[in-house]
């Protein structure tokens, strides 16, 4: 490779990386500069530094004077973990059946999981509201866990099924000869072998729950049952534009999910594309 070509490639990549990082740096800058508006400057380095916005966000209290921020963090964490667990359980079992077993309705089921992704959320929102209301699950995290895990399932099923397909059947056949049951083959062989795909789907389920705000905003009405996106949304909602608090909140909300993303990102390529590449 010639010297000039290398420089050109690096220049290109550096340009794109800068484009990617710059908006994020601006938010970080805003979160540590005082005041609620953006200042007229392009530099990502803040002129004055303060942690006021962070302490305001973390120290926010509800009507009864109890700490609100930690309550909301707890809500989001519980919601996201529960969604991940329920979603993974539902998706992995059905993906296993779709990958390993041949049964009538298999094609139709797979098609259904594909088609379901095309349902616009607004179409489902009003009926869901009515159903959750009837079940008494409105304004509760249980209802949201169910909704989120079912909306995350189609993608998870397809990804997992694609990955399960790449695991050789011979291993299971050997286990079958040794007297393993269907469940043992699933739980002891297929699940441990598909760690990358499981990591990726778990990550997506988690991100779905952690980042979703339209349904959360519609279904949750008490301040103490809010999730983080709803809280952030309220900082720059129709009535107020507290960009400082929003930026600080955005940084706080993004850090855990980005950390998780980067921990699991080495699985991203193999987990996502295994099914597709095979074909």
């Amino acid at each position, binding site marked *: 490779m010639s010297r000039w070509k290398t420089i050109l490639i690096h220049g290109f990549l550096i340009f794109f990386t800068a484009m990617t990082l710059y908006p994020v740096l601006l938010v970080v800058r805003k979160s540590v500069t005082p005041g609620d508006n953006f200042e007229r400057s392009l530099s990502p380095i803040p002129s004055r530094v303060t942690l006021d916005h962070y302490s305001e966000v973390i120290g926010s209290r509800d009507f009864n004077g109890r700490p609100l921020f930690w309550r909301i963090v707890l809500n989001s964490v519980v919601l996201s973990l529960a969604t991940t667990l329920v979603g993974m359980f539902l998706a992995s079992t059905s993906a296993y059946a779709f990958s390993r077993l041949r049964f009538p309705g298999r094609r139709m089921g797979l098609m259904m999981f594909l088609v379901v992704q095309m349902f616009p959320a607004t179409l*489902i929102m009003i009926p869901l509201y009515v159903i959750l209301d009837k079940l008494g699950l409105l304004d509760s995290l249980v209802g949201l866990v169910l909704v989120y895990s079912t909306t995350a399932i189609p993608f998870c099923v397809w990804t997992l099924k694609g990955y399960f397909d790449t695991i050789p059947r011979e291993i299971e056949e050997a286990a079958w000869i040794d007297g393993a049951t269907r469940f043992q083959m699933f739980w002891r062989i297929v699940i441990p072998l598909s760690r990358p795909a499981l990591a990726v789907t778990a990550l997506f389920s988690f991100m779905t729950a952690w980042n979703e*705000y339209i349904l959360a905003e519609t279904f949750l009405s008490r301040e103490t049952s809010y999730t983080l996106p709803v809280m952030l949304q309220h900082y720059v909602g129709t009535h107020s534009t507290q960009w400082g608090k929003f930026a600080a909140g955005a940084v706080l909300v993004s850090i855990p999910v980005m950390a998780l993303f980067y921990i699991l990102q080495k699985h991203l390529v193999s987990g996502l594309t295994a099914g597709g590449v095979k074909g």
Partner: protein
Amino acid sequence: MGDRQIPGRLLESLKSWAVALLAVLPLLVVYLWSAGQVQEQEFRTTAQLNAFECVGSSEPCVPVWVLRPEPYMEGSLVRFRVIGTRPSGKVSREKDAKLPRWAHDLAVEAWQSRKGAVRWVSKPGHSAIRTAVFMDDTVHVGQAPVRGQYPDVPWEHLLVLFVFSLFMLLLPPRPVPVIMSFVAFFYLANGMFGYRADAEPDWIYSFSHIYEGTDTALVVVWFLTAAISLFISISYALNRFKGWCRTLKEHRIAYTYVLPAILGMGILVLVPFAFGVTLGFFNHCKGDYTFVGLRNFWEILSGGGASITNPLNFWFTLGVTLMWTFLNVLLHVSIGLGLALLLKNPLLKMRSVYRVLLILPWAMPNYITALMWKGMFQQQYGAVNILLDKLGLGGVSWFSSFWTAFTANVVTNTWLGFPFMMVVSLGALQSIPTSLYEAADVDGASSWQKFWNITLPLLRPALFPAIVMGSIWTFNMFNVIYLVSGGEPGGSTDILITEAYQWAFKRGERYGLAAAYAVLIFIILLLYSWFAQKLTEQKLD
């Protein structure tokens, strides 16, 4: 041989008859119930109208109290004073104390509605309708007896059904599908012509006003019953029903594994979906839903009276949506693939650093991204305008004209979406064996030839599903449009999904219209993915 066959066949036909009767029985129960409901409803309506007339007429057929609301009120409470009785017309103070509680309550109701109120009283052997009518600032309350014949079991309908069934006995073996289809038709026809408020002999009118004026619950029951019986009849006709039971038993392990997910999806996705589709046929106004047939769809597809250049026109929004999807996917794929090709080279220094930094937008919650870019495009303090200013181009008011607002949306979504395509392309590129490139090198192929003849064809199987998936996501990308431009200026940058949202929650709670929009979105995407699938199948062959 023959002797043994005949009782066997007889038994067989008897068995199929027993099944048929068992299947018809619940249908009969449903039919009786719903027919009774309708007749009772009709009966009640006429009786109430009679009672109303009776109490409200100048020469009432029953004793009537005439009440006047007192001038003072406590909160929303109203008090009434008896100012007379009719038909005698004699004013008496003694009546004041005797005014029963129900008459007072009914009078309040009538006074509040400014029209009237009715209540049914049913005791064994005696039923009456208590009525209050509001006339010239006074309320007239009376208790009118129920007139007319109380509805009876529709024996003649049952008779017809049974005679028909008996007649069916004479027909050859498989009677079930025929009966079932008959029942299905019967239920549909019932709703169409049977219980309409005004019987119009005009067929076209009947079709455009099917089920109008009928209780919604009854319509639902009719439809469900018709659907179920049609389903059973068709499956019988295809001789599948037994087969299904058998396969269910045979593959019970597979179904056990699939069941939890299907159940969850069924309750929380499919039921709401069915509900939403149904909603598309109704009009919502202040909590009341009325059945309007295909009128919502007609309003959307005809543009709702707006010209094609008006953002409220469906076709305008569809055009914007298609342009939005196409541009975004094009940018995602070209940037993602381009970066992946650069990052593929294992000798490149800092390769993993670039990769880690470039997937940052994927890791960010996308509503934060959207709000962040909205801030960047802000007219006065936004980084984009400051940059343009520094370059001497002058700032732009991004959200006041269509093209600039659209560009802002596209830039945001491109920033958000290219990492996904990059990661998918990287994975696919890594799986292409290097021996192919080595062989091409031996043959003296240029790098363009290698890209065109090796990379692209081998990339297709992985990239194509990602593109289909990505375009569906972009088509329904609510967050970016809603949070960045919010449809500004004047709703012109709205895509179909945000337009539906606007109708439901911003422009007078038109849930029905929003649902119809959503159904159309679904149909478009379904056609698209079906088309895409056909295309891949052809390519792979």
